[in-house]
C-alpha cells in the first residue's frame, strides 16, 4: 500500500537538486515525492519515494515536450496539495501543472541568480502561488519575496 503524497518536490541535477535537498529538511515527516532528472541522485540521497523525468530547457523542444508529458502525468495522478521547486525547467513545468489542479505552488529561485531572476524564475510568476528569491535586493512588493537564503 502506498501512502498518499501531499507534497511534490522538484529539482534538476546540479545546484537545483542540492538546494532542494537542503530545503527538504523543512518537509521532514511529511509525505513527499521527490522528482529529479537523474536516477543516481535519488539513490545517493537514499530516497525511495522518487521519480525521474527527462531534463529539458528551451533549446531542446523535443525533450521539453517529453518532460511536459511526464510532469503532467505525474502531477495529475499524484494530485499533491503542494509543489515546491528550486528549478529549473522541469520544476517550472510541474508548477504549471500544479496550478491546473489547484495545488499550492512554491518557486524557490536558485541562490546562483544573484543579479537577476532566471528566465524560468520570471515565467514562474504565472504559475507560482509563492515565489522566493534568496537575494534581498531582488525582492519586490509584487514578488518575488525574500525569506532567507541557504548559504
Amino acid at each position: 500500500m502506498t501512502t498518499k503524497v501531499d507534497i511534490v518536490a522538484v529539482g534538476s541535477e546540479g545546484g537545483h537538486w542540492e538546494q532542494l535537498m537542503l530545503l527538504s529538511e523543512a518537509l521532514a515527516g511529511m509525505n513527499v515525492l521527490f522528482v529529479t532528472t537523474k536516477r543516481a541522485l535519488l539513490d545517493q540521497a537514499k530516497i525511495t519515494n522518487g521519480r525521474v523525468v527527462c531534463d529539458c530547457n528551451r533549446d531542446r523542444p523535443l525533450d521539453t515536450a517529453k518532460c511536459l508529458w511526464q510532469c503532467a502525468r505525474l502531477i495529475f495522478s499524484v494530485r499533491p496539495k503542494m509543489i515546491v521547486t528550486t528549478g529549473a525547467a522541469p520544476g517550472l513545468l510541474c508548477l504549471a501543472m500544479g496550478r491546473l489542479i489547484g495545488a499550492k505552488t512554491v518557486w524557490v529561485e536558485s541562490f546562483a541568480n544573484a543579479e537577476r531572476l532566471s528566465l524560468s524564475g520570471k515565467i514562474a510568476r504565472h504559475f507560482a502561488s509563492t515565489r522566493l528569491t534568496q537575494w534581498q535586493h531582488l525582492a519586490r512588493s509584487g514578488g518575488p519575496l525574500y525569506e532567507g537564503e541557504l548559504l
Partner: protein
Amino acid sequence: MIVVTVGTQLPFDRLIRMMDELAPALGDEVFAQTGAGQYVPRNIRASAAMAPAEFEAMFRQASVIVAHAGIGTVLKAYKYRKPIVLVPRKAEFGEHRNDHQLATVSKLGERRGIYIAENKDELVRLLDGPLMPPVAEEAASAGRRRLLSFLHRQAREAVRGADH
C-alpha cells in the same frame, strides 16, 4: 590533492586546460571531473562523469577545490569545509547562456574560504598561497533557518488546509 570540477551539464574546457597546463608546476596531485568537455588532459587524472557517491569520496580527500561557480559545488565546499577557488563561466566563450556566474562570484568572493580566479595567473597565485576553509557564518545560518521555517509553514498550511 586538488580536485577540479566543472559540473556535469556544460563543458568548461578553458578551466580543465588551465589546470592541465598548471599541474606539473603545482607539486600536488590534480584530479579533474571534466563533464561534457572535449579537451583531453595530459598531465592530470581525469574522469568525464562519476557516480555521485564516488565524486563525494573524491571531494572528501581534496585539500583544495577548483571549480566553475556552480552552487552545488559551493554547497559541498561548505559541507566538507574545503577551500574553494571559483572560476566563473563566461558567455563570451560559450561557457554558459549568460554571465550569471560572474554575478554569483562577485557576491560569494567576499566570503571566507571562497576565492575567485578569472584567469591562469590568478589561479596560480591562489594555489601557491595558503587557503582557508569556508565556515558557515552566523548570519547565513540564520537566513537558512528563516527560509526553512517559511517553507515548513507553507507546507503545513497546504497539507492541513486541504484536510478541512
